[in-house]
């Protein structure tokens, strides 16, 4: 059971970040952001060692008093960061690893969505977004031809990702 799951772009901005409980969202944002220091460190250390058979799982990034922060990096330098409760001893290395793998698969599905622009935030609530040309973000989604489809398909795709994350946050793997 994870308390926070984040997908971070190559350029280190969050593509997706969700935490539970939500009232402490800010804390987790800071935590995940700070953990990028260690992610960077690990990636640069790893880059020298194994280029071909790179281990995507970065292991424990750092512990805090109450949480453990784990990292994972895809080949395209997209980072996954997961925060779990320290008290949750059920989550061992292997469980975390498999959770990351599931997350990676789910993320790949998002990338396969032809209406997803790589680098865009993974939005699971696009259907609720206003889509008139003068609304914020409107022109983004109202590209010609695509507009209608973007509204129809994108939520389905990213919702699958969202559901995946939700399941990881609820279930004890």
């Amino acid at each position, binding site marked *: 059971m994870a308390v926070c799951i984040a997908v971070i772009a190559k350029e280190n*901005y969050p593509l997706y970040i969700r935490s539970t409980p939500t009232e402490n969202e800010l804390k987790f944002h800071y935590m995940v952001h700070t953990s990028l*220091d260690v992610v960077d460190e690990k990636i640069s250390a790893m880059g020298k060692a194994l280029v071909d058979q790179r281990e995507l799982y970065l292991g424990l990034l750092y*512990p805090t*008093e109450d949480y453990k922060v784990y990292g994972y990096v895809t080949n395209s330098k997209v980072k996954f960061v997961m925060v779990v409760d320290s008290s949750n001893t059920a989550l061992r290395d292997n469980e975390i690893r498999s959770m990351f793998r599931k997350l990676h698969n789910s993320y790949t599905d998002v990338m396969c969505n032809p209406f997803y622009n790589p680098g865009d*935030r993974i939005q699971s609530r696009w259907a609720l977004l206003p889509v008139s040309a*003068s*609304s914020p973000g409107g*022109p983004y989604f109202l590209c010609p031809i695509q507009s209608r489809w973007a509204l129809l398909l994108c939520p389905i795709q990213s919702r699958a990702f969202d559901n995946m994350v939700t399941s990881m946050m609820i279930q004890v793997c």
Partner: protein
Amino acid sequence: MDASEEPLPPVIYTMENKPIVTCAGDQNLFTSVYPTLSQQLPREPMEWRRSYGRAPKMIHLESNFVQFKEELLPKEGNKALLTFPFLHIYWTECCDTEVYKATVKDDLTKWQNVLKAHSSVDWLIVIVENDAKKKNKTNILPRTSIVDKIRNDFCNKQSDRRSLPLFSRCCSSLRMPWCSTTSWTPSSLSMWSTSGPGVSVPPGALDCWVFLSCLEVLQRIEGCCDRAQIDSNIAHTVGLWSYATEKLKSLGYLCGLVSEKGPNSEDLNRTVDLLAGLGAERPETANTAQSPYKKLKEALSSVEAFEKHYLDLSHATIEMYTSIGRIRSAKFVGKDLAEFYMRKKAPQKAEIYLQGALKNYLAEGWALPITHTRKQLAECQKHLGQIENYLQTSSLLASDHHLTEEERKHFCQEILDFASQPSDNPGHKIVLPMQSFAQLRDLHFDPSNAVVHVGGVLCIEITMYSQMPVPVHVEQIVVNVHFSIEKNNYRKTAEWLTKHKTSNGIINFPPETAPFPVSQNSLPALELYEMFERSPSDNSLNTTGIICRNVHMLLRRQESSSSLEMPSGVALEEGAHVLRCSHVTLEPGANQITFRTQAKEPGTYTLRQLCASVGSVWFVLPHIYPIVQYDVYSQEPQLHVEPLADSLLAGIPQKVKFTVTTGHYTIKNGDSLQLSNAEAMLILCQAESRAMVYSNTREQSSDAALRIQSSDKVTSISLPVAPAYHVIEFELEVLSLPSAPALGGESDMLGMAEPHRKHKDKQKTGHCMVTTDHKVSIDCPWSIYSTVIALTFSVPFRTTHALLSSGTRKYVQVCVQNLSELDFQLSDSYLVDTSDSTDLQLVPLNTQSQQPIYSKQSVFFVWELKWTEEPPPSLHCRFSVGFSPASEEQLSISLKPYTYEFKVENFFTLYNVKAEIFPPSGMEYCRTGSLCSLEVLITRLSDLLEVDKDEALTESDEHFSTKLMYEVVDNSSNWAVCGKSCGVISMPVAARATHRVHMEVMPLFAGYLPLPDVRLFKYLPHHSAHSSQLDADSWIENDSLSVDKHGDDQPDSSSLKSRGSVHSACSSEHKGLPMPRLQALPAGQVFNSSSGTQVLVIPSQDDHVLEVSVT
């Protein structure tokens, strides 16, 4: 301690503080196992299950076993780690259910209740198996049932035991800091061993303990490593530093040390409790000047000391993080530090940390940290009195969707409050970037092509998306406009602008993506343009280069993070040209704002800046991009006249379109166009002429009647009233009167001695229509000068005539060829003799009075010439035929007929030439290769006529004779003329006078061969005054003729020469000599009665040679 994996010599630590374990139950049993237990337990390695993916470590533990007493248990709330037991063991040897039920269960229940009362949850029940007892009592239940019973009775009730693992929690929090320090042996491990985990601890005690642990570990590390080692392992130790800083911070906050006023009495009480809880310093460090213990005690003792220690630790941590490149972590510690400074009311010190952290978050696009840090920064800036910065941050926060509505309103109100308060410096403006306040979404021009004439009204409607949570009243919205004159650019002419600059007039502005960082691929592409600067005087090239039009877009990216926060020198442009819209209330979301402007000076106007003023606060969009321009033009009034069709046809009514571009001129009532009539062009006035009046943009149109008055010389068209910059369009019908072409100029007259080359030229140009230009001078009301318009009309017909003879009967043939694309109907063809000789009659042989003539086709007309007396030497004829377009149903006017005048001369037949070929005597047919005789009979058909009177005429004894030259030519080379082929004869000028010429010719081919041509020339003596009139074409005939001049009439039968060789042999002989001349007799004067006849030639029987020529 397993330190074998380290390169350092293993350090063996003995446990100074052993964890206390109580023993209850069967004391005798415990005493019996104690010696073994106390000896064996430390020897047996225990697995230390370490989290975070590390391999478990095997450690050795010693314990201090004491007998269980209730007094030992900690009071409620006391969580001291040391001095209290943390594990309680109940020993029993019971194997009998009866005994268990009778005594052990009761005892266990009591023990449990005591533990429960003290919230001690870490306990252990040990059942010792005794084999001897088991054997003695065979009837007892299996021992396992006791275990099961105990498990049922006690363990189930303790289901919440796992959920509150205080012990393990303590361990994990302890382990945390050095989990990253695999290489360092934690000495503090022994610390918790001695003290043991307290069940209840005062608030802050845990923090104290962690703080001390961290510092102790760090001290140990410092103690056993050299500087280089420490430096190289900062990555492992910095976590401890950070943790210690964090703990000290929370202690400081707890004890009221981080506040402006200092600690209150409650805080002081808490501090005293904590200090007391620390106990006495351990003897080994008591005498050192510095120790973690001393540090903590000192830090908690006074506000100043806390500040010093906290700052020391913070700075050390930040420095270490920075040195190993963990910038984010450093910024995060810095933010804590900023918070501390803010508490201490030192915002000037806090600002740099907040800015640093914010910059980092902005650069990486972390929205929530941005919002949070910005909020802190706003408070800091407010305290610092940085009004501009504060207002800017406030505007960013007011537009921040991560804040609650209330918070956004608060920050918005802060701006509005400031804006509304009277400024001490009235002219002072606070300039803020517009981005966070409102965004320019789109812009719409009306007229949509963004082109307006001088004096015209231009509307610009913009959509501003207000980011503020509440409606904001804006005093004015101003667009600064840059004005430039591009006079020499043809793209800026009125014609080009009104016709070619087409767009829908809507410009969309890309929404800003901030605060998301922009990845490389979404950077705008370079917009490079060539730039040419020309000298205004002679238009020569002065400079050339390449300019980047969107340089501000590209350069801004690099400083995006800083410019968003700093008041980045947004300069307010003061221009002469502004578009202004006053007193607008911007509602949250999209707002439409309309600017109206009346165009004044012609040129190009570029929208540069957009400013919105709220009191003394000005929100400025420094660059409007993409570039938005509108053009103002001025235009001179103009008149264009152009045919509606590709070309105008003469003779029939044709439509011509008049276009009056009013430009800056206003057409008043009574203004008219005065057309001075061309002679041969009529302007057809129709009863109802309408004119269309358009605006320059063609958006509006109206219809007006047109009054046309025509006098002999002037046609006056009164124009409808039209405002400036409008277009008046109307059509007029014009008719170019068919003019008679120059006499014979257009004709192909067979009867005339026309030079051949000229004839060929005519044919080449024959398919083009003859054109006539008509110039019309028009006086326009706006100018004192006349406009001259040239209209070109094409004559649709081409006419040729020919004289045909049959003996002495004469016919005139007129061929009318339609060159145009139209079909016409021809009617009423006439041929009249203009000389009006009564003797001559023209008898038409044409049967139909109406005749269609289709496009690109010809119609022939024939008349027979008849006379009774002597025919006139020449004939002047005028051909006329009525025509009208075949498609036209009814024409308003009657059209004039098409006329064609020509002259026919010397048409009367004077000589009849008859040639005959006879086979050799005795032969029935002519044979190839055998000589045949050619007889030419030239007969004079009339007595002396007027046309005979020329130099060749000689008179002797009242008998007139003239000299003629005949020539036999066979251009088809069917015949070889043997002997002389030509000769000069003296021909009596009398009717029925004949001259016979005999020649020998040889057929070269078999078959029906046409006879050779016999040509007749007039032989003029050399002293003719007309010799100079001969042109070069005649020389050939002259040359060939000159051969024969010296010869006699007798043919030289012995020679068989080709003409060409004779010619070349003799041509040089007579150069420069005065030579007689030849004049071809006009075709009408000679009638060849044998033309067209053929002679049968059979092949010779002894033909052995078959010539085959392949071409």
